[in-house]
């Protein structure tokens, strides 16, 4: 039966996992995603999960178990954060290279040093080129909805690529919201049955998984891997629509908030987008024609749709909760600015790194950005292209 439940972000991932009931769950606890693993262990102990629950000795091993189980033909999930994801690193590339549709819930958290347990996007952004699909969630409901859709996206025959579902550490992972939890049977029906193409357990068709590739095949294999994630946009769109028709909450590549007549826009992902929308409302009341765009899908990057949505703006500020030291702007900014390059008429685009290590971002900070955009709109001049928000400068 579908019910409204008070759940925090971690519990929504566990709840969705219980409903999907994957064949194998392999995860190692790490703050702030520990409660995902904890809740799943409880479900398993209570007999509410039939799949295998494996507690390995590290995240590297957790992802290795996932890879083995998925190669054996199973539907597989895991969860982690920060250093845990970093420890999975080499295995992430292998999961993607072997086209295994593993789904991972990531309570996004900062990377050391210095040690910090709070939310930012350094972990998944660091893994952006590992070949995984990235979905980001603004709140607990979106984390739940994204996690269910992730299985459909990952397992689609044209895609067969692993998926990260990001939810901001603590801000979402530990905040309780009232979440619409759908009916168990409806969720199972929505994700359907998973049929692996190859299985190590299928003795009638013997295969070798992950053998050595020399200079004569590696390149072709890598190209065929890329095809999976490049096929993903159509599938993400289809699954998002179908999710809307089934459960009443449709999803696309990004959400546009008060963008219809906007002349300036703030682009921001995940939990901060909620605060951003409040700031947009206030700025609108003050007479600014400003909107907000919240990306949901970062890989594959919906560059055309994003550029179409932003090209008519006069000025755009892209807010990144991760830095890319030495790069010309942070990850989201470089994508968006690149996407706009071919348009004759395009906005000025500026970049702010914000919220590293869980530093709060408030309405007043968004309003600061709004005022800066308004100034650029009026003067056409950018004083500082890449800056920082809510950082002690002097």
């Amino acid at each position, binding site marked *: 039966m579908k019910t409204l439940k008070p759940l925090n972000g971690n519990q929504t991932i566990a709840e969705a996992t219980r409903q999907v009931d994957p064949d194998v769950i392999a995860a190692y606890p790490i703050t702030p995603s520990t409660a995902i693993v904890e809740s799943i262990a409880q479900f398993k102990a209570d007999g509410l999960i039939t799949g295998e629950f494996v507690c390995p000795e590290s995240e590297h091993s957790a992802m290795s178990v996932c890879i083995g189980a998925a190669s054996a033909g199973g539907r597989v999930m895991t969860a982690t954060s920060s250093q845990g994801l970093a420890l999975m690193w080499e295995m992430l590339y292998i999961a993607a*290279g*072997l*086209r*295994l549709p593993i789904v991972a819930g990531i309570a996004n958290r900062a990377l050391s040093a210095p040690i910090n347990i709070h939310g930012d996007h350094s972990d998944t952004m660091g893994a952006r080129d590992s070949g995984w699909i990235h979905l980001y969630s603004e709140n607990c409901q979106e984390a739940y909805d994204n996690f269910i859709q992730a299985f459909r996206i990952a397992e689609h025959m044209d895609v*067969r690529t692993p998926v990260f579902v990001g939810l901001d550490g603590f801000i979402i992972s530990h905040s309780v919201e009232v979440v619409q939890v759908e009916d168990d049977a409806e969720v199972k029906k929505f994700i359907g049955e998973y049929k692996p*193409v*190859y299985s190590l357990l299928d003795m009638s*068709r*013997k*295969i*070798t*998984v*992950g*053998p050595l*590739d*020399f200079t*004569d*095949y590696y*390149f*072709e*294999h890598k*190209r*065929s*891997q890329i*095809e999976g994630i490049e096929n993903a946009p159509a599938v993400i769109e289809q699954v998002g629509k179908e999710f809307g028709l089934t459960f009443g909450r449709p999803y696309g590549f990004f959400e546009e908030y008060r963008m219809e007549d906007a002349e300036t826009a703030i682009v921001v992902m995940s939990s901060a987008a909620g605060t951003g929308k409040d700031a947009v409302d206030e700025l609108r009341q003050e007479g600014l024609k400003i909107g907000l765009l919240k990306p949901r899908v970062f890989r594959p990057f919906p560059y055309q749709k994003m550029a179409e949505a932003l090209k008519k703006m006069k000025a755009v500020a892209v807010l990144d909760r991760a830095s890319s030291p030495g790069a010309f702007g942070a990850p989201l900014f470089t994508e968006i600015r690149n996407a706009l390059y071919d348009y004759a008429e395009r906005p000025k685009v500026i970049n702010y790194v914000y919220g590293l290590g869980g530093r709060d971002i408030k309405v007043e900070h968004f309003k600061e950005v709004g005022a800066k955009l308004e100034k650029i709109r009026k003067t056409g001049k950018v004083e500082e292209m890449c800056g920082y928000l809510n950082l002690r400068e002097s």
Partner: protein
Amino acid sequence: MKKETWKELPLGCVNVHPGNSRENLTGTWRSGLKPEFIAEPCIHCMFCWLYCPHFAIIVEDGVMKAINYNYCTGCGLCAEECPTKPKSIVMVKEEVKLAEGGKK
């Protein structure tokens, strides 16, 4: 053997012809030295068989028979590990032929 384009490859780098490393003649990697088997002092201890990284030691009914030069890379491990005095495997100079590539 015709090599597949990226569109023709099975999903996920899976090798659907298990055991096809047999076609990969690692013996073409040899560059200057090759092991030579001298049956006389051999005690059939199987050290060479155990250490050979390329399964190039031919054993029949527990008896060391010969070296398979199709796969022997000339690494010299067998000669190094052979415990007999004098050695039952010695490395000898081999005229280097330019390899034609790993696969036939």
